[in-house]
């Protein structure tokens, strides 16, 4: 008599998600280091504006999360790509997995990690605030804190989270393509350059990031973009064989 256990896709994805959250803790630790380096770099401020009134000149140094975010963005690309490497794909197949379940679990992990990365990137600004205020004797302006502008906080936070997700989904797709053919390694760099240099590329970038009637519209666009990246990655992964 054979007793076959039947697991639904949902169960397997959930189990894989739990497993991955344990197994990929290293990626989260690397995120912390990336953020700390980003914080150190942004100690000098991101931008400063100066002006003078009545013999008095003002310099206002803006400290935002931009540099940390840039660092985290690169982290996201590589984490997305990391999940597609042989070692990570093979690990899944040491347990119960199909390509679909493995992709869904990876995407869930990327979502969770993006949320974590977004929240910590947003909050890391506060470490900078406290450290700068304690270390330097420069005056500061009491800026809006999360308690004073909850809606603004949520909006800024969700943009960060979804941007990170989009970037990591892009990295994931890129990784899958690289797995299919090594030549795709340079595709990303080529793509970024063409997007920046050519007119059409600039139009696309402008459309996605700049011409937004509202923040909500931007968020919807980014989510759609992540889903497209992810679906393409699933299609690619079906071509890949394990432990070949």
């Amino acid at each position, binding site marked *: 008599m*054979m007793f076959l256990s039947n697991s639904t896709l949902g169960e397997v994805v959930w189990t894989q998600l739990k497993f991955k959250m344990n197994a990929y803790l290293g990626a989260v630790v690397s995120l912390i280091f990336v953020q700390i380096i980003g914080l150190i770099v942004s100690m000098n401020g991101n931008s400063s504006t100066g002006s003078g009134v009545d013999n008095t000149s003002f310099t206002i140094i803006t400290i935002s999360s931009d540099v940390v975010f840039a660092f985290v963005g690169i982290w996201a690309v590589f984490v997305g790509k990391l999940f597609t490497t042989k070692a990570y794909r093979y*690990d899944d197949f040491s347990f*119960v997995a*199909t390509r679909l379940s493995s992709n869904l679990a990876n995407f869930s992990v990327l979502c969770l990690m993006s949320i974590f990365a977004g929240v910590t990137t947003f909050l890391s600004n506060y470490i900078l605030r406290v450290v700068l205020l304690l270390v330097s004797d420069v005056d500061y302006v009491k800026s809006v804190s999360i308690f004073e502008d909850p809606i603004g906080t949520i909006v800024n936070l969700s943009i960060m989270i979804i941007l990170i997700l989009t970037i990591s989904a892009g990295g994931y797709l890129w990784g899958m393509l690289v797995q299919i053919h090594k030549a795709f390694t340079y595709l990303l760099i080529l793509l970024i350059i063409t997007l920046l240099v050519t007119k059409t590329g600039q139009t696309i970038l402008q459309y996605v990031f700049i011409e937004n009637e509202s923040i909500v519209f931007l968020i919807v666009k980014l989510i759609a973009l992540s889903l497209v990246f992810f679906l393409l990655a699933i299609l690619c992964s079906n071509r890949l064989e394990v*432990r070949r």
Partner: protein
Amino acid sequence: MTVIDCQDLRKKYKRMAALDGITFQLKDQKITGLIGRNGAGKTTLLKILAGFIRKGSGDVLVFSSNPFNNLRVSGNSILVDDQMSFPDSLTLADILGMAPDFYKRWDTELANNLFKYFKLNPKQLHSRLSKGNKATFNMIFGLATRCELTMFDEPTNGMDEAVRSDFYRALLKDYIAHPRSIMISSHHLAEMEHLLEDILLIHKGKVVFHQSLEEVKEYAVALQGTTDLVEKLAAGKEILHTKQLDSQRNYVVIKKEEMPVIDGVTTQPVSVSDVCMYVTSDGKGGIDDVFK
């Protein structure tokens, strides 16, 4: 119940055919030895059965479905080989802790007891295990999953002598307690022969035979005696192997058939591993012919 059903299964790597029309069926709850020389296609076959790689042409059914990208097959089968990998951030204890979530019939007690018996370090990382310990751990993992289809690809590679015999013993005892379909591929047929019920011999991507162990034992007979007598006796029969002793010759003849007893020629049985070796050797001669 049929666990595996392969019909004219083919698989090509680049332009080289790894599997060239494999047809066999595997009934459930048998220990089957997958035997073949290096490059015969054993590993490719197992990987297709485990759903790791896509079939080429032909049909392959595991639990009545195509194993590639099939959740039911993945959940009820496991392939243990030396390429098995686990995340670097998990210790061996962590891996054993995660496994029950995936495999519903996972035997925690068996896993822990074997783990202790083989004196593995629970805090060790899988990637840092020695070759032998890695094989031991993979074997423990494979046994404890209790998968309805458990496949081992060269499981004893790197294990020392004592661990090998412990492994075979553990496999047998667990099989007796929980019968399931087990497939083992190995070079060392002799040391695991006693475990096997069936032998699936493949050569150059084709099935040579799929028979019970006892049938294979009766497959061939060796004749030894003076050259002219032996030659006369073997005339018209399929010669698998010849070996010149001195002025005498030694023949192995396929299909053990009724032989007249002739004075000066003794008949001997041929061991299973020798049968497999002779059947899959390309020339009819042996290594001695090289030195002629």
